[in-house]
């Protein structure tokens, strides 16, 4: 499976810029290089292949239509693209009924799919800094943030997952996120 390396970033930027000018071939190459990452992201949020395929299409259309607005000085190409895809996936999942994770048919075991943040892997300096800040939080709050990101869970769903009241989850989330911001210093 292709993993996006840091050195590939320049290629992605080039393809994005070319796509902004209407270059479909470049856009197809961009798709080939990034599709598995984006699909992985949206599939875990939507938990259904048919929805994930539809959202993947919509994400790439949005990327195509707004490639001209991509600014390499502000974000790396893959994070820009993942953010677009993720936002779309959460739009869709929030529009559906607010069911708990367990009600979804074909749901994976949420806990089992959680990666070990400490596992040796090639991660960017950016993620290293973020993980270092996450680790300053209590474990339950770390889980909150990671579960929310990975599975696109709402406060209600997180509350069910953790067996806590929704307001507690809201407070924990906000405090944790503000502490992360403090820690990152940016």
């Amino acid at each position, binding site marked *: *499976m292709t993993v996006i390396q840091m050195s590939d970033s320049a290629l992605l930027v080039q393809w994005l810029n070319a796509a*902004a000018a209407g270059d479909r071939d470049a856009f197809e190459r961009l*798709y080939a290089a990034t599709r598995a990452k984006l699909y*992985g992201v949206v599939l875990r949020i939507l938990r259904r292949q048919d929805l994930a395929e539809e959202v993947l299409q919509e994400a790439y*259309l949005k990327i195509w239509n707004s490639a001209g607005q991509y600014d390499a000085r502000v974000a790396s190409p893959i994070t820009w693209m993942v953010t677009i895809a993720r936002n779309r996936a959460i739009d869709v999942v929030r529009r559906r009924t607010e069911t708990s994770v367990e009600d979804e048919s074909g749901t994976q075991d949420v806990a089992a799919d959680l990666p070990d943040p400490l596992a040796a892997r090639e*991660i960017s300096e950016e993620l290293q800094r973020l993980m270092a800040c996450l680790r300053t939080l209590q474990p339950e709050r770390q889980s909150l943030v990671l579960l929310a990101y990975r599975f696109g869970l709402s406060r209600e769903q997180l509350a069910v997952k953790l067996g806590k009241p929704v307001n507690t989850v809201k407070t924990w989330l*906000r405090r944790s*996120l503000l502490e992360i911001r403090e820690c990152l210093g940016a």
Partner: protein
Amino acid sequence: MTEDEDREGLAAEYALGTLDRSERLQAQSLIERDAAFAALVRAWERRIASLHELIEPVEPPAHVWPLIAARLGAVAAIPVELAAVRRSLRRWRAASMLSGALAASLLLFVGLREFSPALLPQVLQPRAPEGRYVAVLQRDQTSPGFILTVDLRTKSFTVRTVGAQRQPERSYELWLVHDRFPQPHSLGVIGDDEFTTRAALAAYEPEIINTATYAVSVEPPGGSPTGVATGPVVFVGKLIEVLPK
């Protein structure tokens, strides 16, 4: 929490995705109305974005790409405009001794990334000067050379080199071609940097700027010595309006 922290918290939860449906819609509406809030959201998205590296890639089915490709939308020359542009080009060709083979191979590209075809006739009409206009100067549909952005407010333009190769001992010169002028007007040589910005459109009315054809020819260093294009025209395009950022 303070009001500032409330906004920050809302932006953070929006980026993370934990807001419920109605709050999410409210936040989206706020993003559109409130640029400062939108900036908070974008900052939060950037803060947490690297978490995607923890998510294992999954190959989507092969049938997805053709569905995307089919939906990339109208990327085509508009027949009505094509006729007008061809007339301009013929006139230009006569005036500047364009190479016949190259003139025949020029394809016009009008990007419709942001608009549906139904909107296009309105877009091409003279607009209030607030607009930002873009032309993709292309050889054909897969060879963008330059992106020309025009700001009608300041009457300046920026040329961004995208695919055009630097040619040794040659300069690229930008021309404005319009029915109203017997000859193309030079907008100057495109510099070696990625971006060239110039106020050279100050003398032109918005209507001219809007409806002109823009072209790039290959000239001796420093541009054409004669005031008309002496070398082959390699990239051509017309302006369309893009939505403001």
